[in-house]
Structures are given as structure tokens and as C-alpha cells.
């Protein structure tokens, strides 16, 4: 389908790439359909562009890129709007604010974006009982977690193997 955007011109977006957000994003109650645009492969930032309002686009990022220990408690009722009970169907992103100065960019950890990629349904989940805030300074947080982030980058493969081994152990333990 053809989608007009003010930043990227007119785009042809396959219908199966449209994320329907039945509750919209708070403050923007005229937009219920979005899609994710890669800026380039070489950046952790992506765009969440509205398919309903050409001007409306958000910069988003995978929170684990700067907050590797990000941990949200979700109950299955929370996920009802995106029709799943399993966190395995979900990818998480957070909205980024630049505040006029890129060095001050923040990620909204209090209200992450959850997308059920199997059904292409999304929602902004407001964490009612959480100590996270809406303005986590991304660069500062990265510095705090720098070693962990770098280590993760470098050991992605090793981590994968380790995870598989751990899973095997859990399986073995649970079968005892």
C-alpha cells in the first residue's frame, strides 16, 4: 500500500509490514497503524512511522542496546491488546526523545513498545508498578553498562552457545 510520509516521501509498504496498534500511542489518538523503517543497517535506531499521519514518526531503539539489564514484569492480561500470552511472540523497543540536543537523547523505559510480530499487533505498555522512568539518558546509561554491552557484542556467538547449553541443563534437571 502507498503511504505518504513527510520525512521519507511516498513509500510502498507491504500490508504485512503494517503494525496495527489498537490502543494507539498516548497523545496520538488518530494513528492506529505504523510500520518500522530501517534508517540504515549500521545504526541501532529505527523509525516507527505512522501509516495514518504523514508527519508522525518516532525514533525507536532496542532498549537492551543501552540498558542490557532492562527487565519488565508483564502479566498476560497486559498483553491482551496484542492477542498473545507469551513473551516469546514479542519484540520490545522504546521511544527515543532528542530534546534538541542529541547528547541528551533519552529512552522511555516506563512505556515500552511491544510488538507481537506473529500477528503484527503493537501496543505501548505503561508499566504502572515500575521504577523505570520516561527519560533514561541513553549515552549515560551506555557508559554505566559499557563493559556489559561491549562484552555482549563480542560474545554474541558464545552467549548463544552458552544459552543453548543452559537450556539443555534445565531440560535435564526438569526431567530428573
Amino acid at each position: 500500500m502507498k503511504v505518504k510520509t513527510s520525512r521519507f516521501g511516498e513509500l510502498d509498504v507491504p500490508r504485512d509490514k503494517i503494525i496495527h496498534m489498537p490502543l494507539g500511542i498516548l497523545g496520538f489518538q488518530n494513528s492506529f497503524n505504523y510500520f518500522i523503517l530501517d534508517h540504515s543497517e549500521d545504526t541501532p535506531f529505527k523509525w516507527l512511522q505512522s501509516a495514518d499521519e504523514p508527519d508522525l514518526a518516532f525514533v525507536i531503539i532496542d532498549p537492551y542496546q543501552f540498558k542490557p539489564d532492562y527487565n519488565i514484569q508483564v502479566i498476560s492480561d497486559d498483553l491482551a491488546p496484542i492477542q498473545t500470552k507469551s513473551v516469546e511472540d514479542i519484540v520490545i523497543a522504546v521511544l527515543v526523545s532528542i530534546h534538541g540536543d542529541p547528547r541528551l537523547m533519552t529512552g522511555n523505559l516506563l512505556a515500552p513498545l511491544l510488538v507481537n510480530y506473529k500477528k503484527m499487533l503493537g501496543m505501548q505498555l505503561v508499566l504502572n508498578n515500575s521504577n523505570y522512568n520516561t527519560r533514561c539518558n541513553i549515552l549515560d546509561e551506555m557508559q554505566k553498562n559499557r563493559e556489559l554491552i561491549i562484552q555482549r557484542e563480542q560474545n554474541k556467538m558464545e552467549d548463544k552457545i552458552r544459552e543453548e547449553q543452559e537450556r539443555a541443563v534445565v531440560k535435564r534437571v526438569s526431567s530428573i
Partner: protein
Amino acid sequence: MLTLTRKVGDSIYIGKDVMVVIKEIKGKQVRIGVNAPLEYPVYRGEIFERIMEENRASAMAPHSVDDITALFKKNLKKED
């Protein structure tokens, strides 16, 4: 604004789907229970306002993420 006086255990219906119950009153604090369908998310007022405000700030996105990408990468390399 509609203002009602209620006692502990009393409830209010908003439409036919949303029920609000006064559960406990302790000094200046009131515990409230809300029974609402899942498609009616319930927020604390101050959190709702903070999220709205932050979403509006996020929507003032630049036209390119080149600047923030460069900063992000530089930030990881620092102190190497």
C-alpha cells in the same frame, strides 16, 4: 465534574463496563479497585500525563538519525 460521596465498599459504574470500588480509606490515602475490560487500560493520573508528555517529545523527531548514531558509536568506543 461529577462529584459523588461514597463509603468503603461502595462502587461506581462508568458506563456498563467499568466498575470502580472504594476498597480502603487510610488517613489521606484511598485504595481503589477498578474492574474494566482489558481494552480499557487503567493508568495512574500522573503517569498517564508523563507518558503523554514524553510521547509528544518523542514525536518531535529529527529528519535523520545520523547524528545520534554517530554519538552512540563514539560512546561505545570511548576509553578504548
